[in-house]
């Protein structure tokens, strides 16, 4: 019965140490009884192949031993959905800002201009991969600790149905926000029209700031997009529910603004600064410095527009798949 001994030894390896001998004795006895039964039916000893078939039917040693072990899980079924949600959020918070910073470097830092965006992404891929792996490890570790402590905390029992979050209609547009958008939009459009037609930003005794030809063109484009935005906000005021078409138009508007501000940031001189108090020798230097700061400011605006475009695009996708927004999921999960 060498085969049987080998089988029992393999099972023993995986068993809890304190119970090893007792469990093995019982399994051994059961297998011997089975073999005896078969042998008395056949009227002869079982061959090694026949014993092997019997053991195969009994199951892999690890599986047999597993039946005697208490059920363990790193993260149990109660916490698992929250764990997955946190991992998704962590991935989003980790990857999106890094990609935006990367894009910012690509736009503003001249030394990155020689590389293509693709090679820049490939260059930082290993860093993203390592960071993602560490984030995954930390989140898993935290949840494993919670899993082991929450059983005694009474967290599952202590909850109040009255404190559950209200169901939000993600398609509804608050009228107050539409009113604010319309008012600010009209003021902005009026100012932009004045600025684009006159081309003068500031005209005082000592200092004169005017737009360059390129600057005026950009301001006209921003004015047109802003006017479109005012129209959309006015429509939202009277029909305060997002439709797929309107949300898609909003995404297009965000993308156009991102593109325009991005181009403005790379366009170079947008204004010309002059004045009696500025020595002509210094004028070139001052203009370069001011235009650099304006480029930076406009570049940051482009990044903000890109973030808004992403958020609106996610809302559009969720609306198409008929799912609740993930922001609501997060607030719901924390409350529940």
């Amino acid at each position: 019965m060498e085969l049987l001994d080998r089988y029992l030894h393999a099972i023993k390896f995986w068993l809890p140490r304190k119970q090893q001998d007792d469990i093995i004795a019982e399994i051994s006895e059961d297998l011997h009884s089975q073999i005896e039964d078969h042998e008395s039916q056949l009227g002869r000893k079982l061959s090694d192949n026949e014993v092997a078939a019997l053991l195969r039917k009994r199951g892999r040693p690890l599986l047999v031993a597993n039946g005697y072990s208490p059920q363990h899980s790193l993260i149990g079924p109660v916490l698992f959905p929250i764990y997955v949600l946190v991992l998704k959020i962590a991935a989003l918070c980790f990857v999106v800002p890094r990609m935006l910073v990367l894009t910012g470097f690509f736009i503003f830092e001249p030394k990155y201009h020689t590389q293509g965006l693709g090679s820049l992404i490939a260059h930082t891929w290993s860093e993203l991969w390592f960071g993602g792996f560490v984030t995954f490890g930390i989140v898993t570790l935290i949840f494993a600790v919670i899993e082991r402590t929450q059983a005694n905390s009474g967290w599952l029992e202590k909850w109040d149905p009255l404190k559950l979050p209200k169901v939000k209609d993600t398609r509804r547009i608050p009228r107050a926000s539409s009113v604010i958008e319309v008012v600010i939009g009209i003021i902005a459009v009026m100012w932009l029209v004045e600025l684009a037609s006159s081309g003068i930003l500031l005209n005082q005794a000592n200092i004169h700031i005017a737009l360059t030809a390129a600057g005026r063109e950009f301001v006209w484009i921003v004015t047109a997009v802003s006017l479109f935005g005012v129209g959309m906000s006015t429509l939202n005021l009277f029909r305060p529910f997002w439709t797929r078409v309107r949300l898609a138009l909003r995404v297009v508007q965000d993308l156009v603004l991102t593109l325009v501000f991005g181009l403005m940031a790379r366009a170079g001189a947008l204004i010309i600064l002059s004045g009696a108090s500025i020595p002509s020798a210094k004028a070139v230097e001052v203009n370069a410095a001011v235009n650099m700061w304006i480029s930076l400011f406009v570049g940051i605006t482009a990044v903000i527009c890109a973030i808004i475009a992403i958020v609106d695009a996610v809302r559009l996708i969720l609306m198409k798949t008929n799912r609740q927004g993930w922001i609501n999921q997060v607030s719901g999960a924390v409350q529940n």
Partner: protein
Amino acid sequence: MSPNPNSDLFENLKGELRRGSLILAVLAELRSEKYGYTLRKDLADKGMEIDEGTLYPLLRRLESQGLLTSQWREEDKRNKRFYRLSADGELILLRLLVEWENIDASLNKILKEQHHGTTGPVPARN
């Protein structure tokens, strides 16, 4: 012939349905003392097949819960572990049997109502 796509689902549901009944069957069968191998054979003879990988861990669990007692004893020149129902086990078995009868009666009622409302066959009962 292609395999029935629902067969896995059926096997899972059957497993869930049998799980509670198996405990009842094991407790009831151990009103008289038996060792693992004969217990399994007796259950199989009565139509309640149970594989060793399920039975032996179940016996240990029921013993650790105080519903069974066990004793190693020599029989036919081999050491065997004999199980029987404990005093607590007998009380629990009685209560579980009452519960089982209630479930059985409720299920019968539901199935009869269904039968009167539809033309489908009522599943045969053993």
